[in-house]
């Protein structure tokens, strides 16, 4: 059994304040978590604001280094990545999808520019890629998310709907052929009817491309709907973990129960 991602007793402490009023803030305390390489899955991370979800995501993406423990991706400690080439190889395998597609793209730049730039950056293994190779790769990624290059080419962010933009952001993440997507609240800014189309897209990426997805959210209903495993975080600690349906059908920890009870149910039957 090989592990795609091995989060091994990881902690992250931030320092806040000046010289005299320095405070330590433990955003993440001792979290361990594994994703197997052979079994692609959607892992939901839920919890209130300030529970350390986003810090955990930043550590998986290598944007923050843990102050304790190790994050291993494909057997390599992310903290040991030094050379540019290694860093790029790692970034190709782990890609982020951000919360708000309207903020992820610069409103003054055309959307396709991000796609072509990503392709140019990551297709360097066989020398400089040609224009045709880049367009073919971008086109393929867009088809995976249900768009075409013709719909996106030359468009500015305001010319696309929120759902199309978030799909484009996901297509961008797919260009380097990643093994793991880290999606931080990808649906909290899109409205109800588009939310399900994004969530369904994650399911189909897992099933068709064998992609594992870390799905960070506070929306328990979509977590229940799409994810295989779930961890529930509070104040930097995992309070409950396991099969998503089993945990949410029958939560044990008082915080998980409170979370589930706070979910608004549209039940009138």
């Amino acid at each position, binding site marked *: 059994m090989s592990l795609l991602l091995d989060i091994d007793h990881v902690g992250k402490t931030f320092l806040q304040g000046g010289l005299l009023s320095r405070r330590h803030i433990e955003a993440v305390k001792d979290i361990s978590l594994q994703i197997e390489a052979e079994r692609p899955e959607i892992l939901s991370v839920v919890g209130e604001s300030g529970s350390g979800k986003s810090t955990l995501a930043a550590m998986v993406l290598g944007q923050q280094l843990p102050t304790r423990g190790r994050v291993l991706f494909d057997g390599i400690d992310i903290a040991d990545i030094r050379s540019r080439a290694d860093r790029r190889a790692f970034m190709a395998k782990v890609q982020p999808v951000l919360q708000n597609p309207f903020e992820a793209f610069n409103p003054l730049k055309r959307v396709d520019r991000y796609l072509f730039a990503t392709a140019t950056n990551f297709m360097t293994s066989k020398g400089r890629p040609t224009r045709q190779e880049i367009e073919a790769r971008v086109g393929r990624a867009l088809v995976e998310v249900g768009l075409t290059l013709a719909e996106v080419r030359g468009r500015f962010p305001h010319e696309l709907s929120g759902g199309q933009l978030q799909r484009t952001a996901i297509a961008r993440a797919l260009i380097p052929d990643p093994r793991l997507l880290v999606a931080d609240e990808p649906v909290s800014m899109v409205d109800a009817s588009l939310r399900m189309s994004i969530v369904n897209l994650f399911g189909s990426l897992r099933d068709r491309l064998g992609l594992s997805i870390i799905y960070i959210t506070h929306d328990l209903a979509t977590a229940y709907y799409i994810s295989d495993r779930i961890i529930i975080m509070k104040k930097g600690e995992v309070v409950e973990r396991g099969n998503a349906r089993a945990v949410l059908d029958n939560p044990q920890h008082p915080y998980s129960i409170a979370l589930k009870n706070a979910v608004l*149910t549209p039940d009138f039957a």
Partner: protein
Amino acid sequence: MQSEALFHTPDTATEPTLVVDRLKAYYTTKAFGIDRDIRAVDDISLSIAKGEIYGVAGESSSGKTTLIKTIVGAIRPPLHVVGGSVRFNFSGQAYDIYDLRPDELQAIRWRHLSYIMQGSMNVLNPVRRIKHSFYDFAYPHMGLDRAAFWDKVRGHLRKLDLDPDVLHSYPHQLSGGMRQRATIALATVCTPEFIVADEPTTALDVIVQRDVLNMLRDIQRDLGSSFLFVTHDMSVHATVSDRVGIVYAGRLVEEADTPTLFRGARHPYTQHLVASLPKIGDTTRRASLAGRPPSLADPPSGCRFHPRCPLAMDICSRQVPVMTSLTPRHRVACFAVTGATS
């Protein structure tokens, strides 16, 4: 079944607090001699009874926020009201928003009509303490001397389970939920008769969201005000709204009491919205709607939903369906439902 008991019967005997009649508001832009109209509110009629929470749902860029702006009279170019009227009835006195002078409108605002905005961070001045926001917004409208004003504010905060010490905090010192509650306290301190809430819980996490919604319901019960509650989240409407209107591409397509809407929606778009809600304990696949929201600059002809509609007929692309009453409190604009043919 018992859920109906939760919904109090609004006072329908007296005059409705708000009557919107055939309201049309467009954003008009002129560039290189070409006029473009963005028809964000197109022929919307609705009325809200005294003490009623009226919910408005729809996707982003369906014109929800423009509807609010035109209702509260916050109209700045390029937005123009093209037709229709908005009439309020505050303590027996009628006001037509578009006939008022600016100073009369100013006098109504906050005293009778207030507004809870989406991002609490944008409402409260980040470099001034919360108390200054209260003073700037509410003091001129209350007609009290200072000591009485601060007593009233403190009492109001205590009633909403907020420590009056928040007045001395800066916005960044409060958590998102506290900040949103402070904004709600600010919007309700003058006991207004009509409150507009625009996505008041969208940025909050589930537990805080529940607290804020409970607080809004309590306020509503306490003051007996009418609410216009706008959010795209149908489960929030299920929890707070007495009646919900569904907006699609600038038009109202269906309106009914909340239980009716969730149990027996008739318009295909509403049916889709209700059916696409994920629920804990239910793993059946949720379909997402094909196509994309129409551009308001160049909306489809006829019924604006017809390119994405599973029931689309010939007539749908040629004629605009009108709102038809199925029952006295259930209106829908759809040819397939009303059975109208050309």
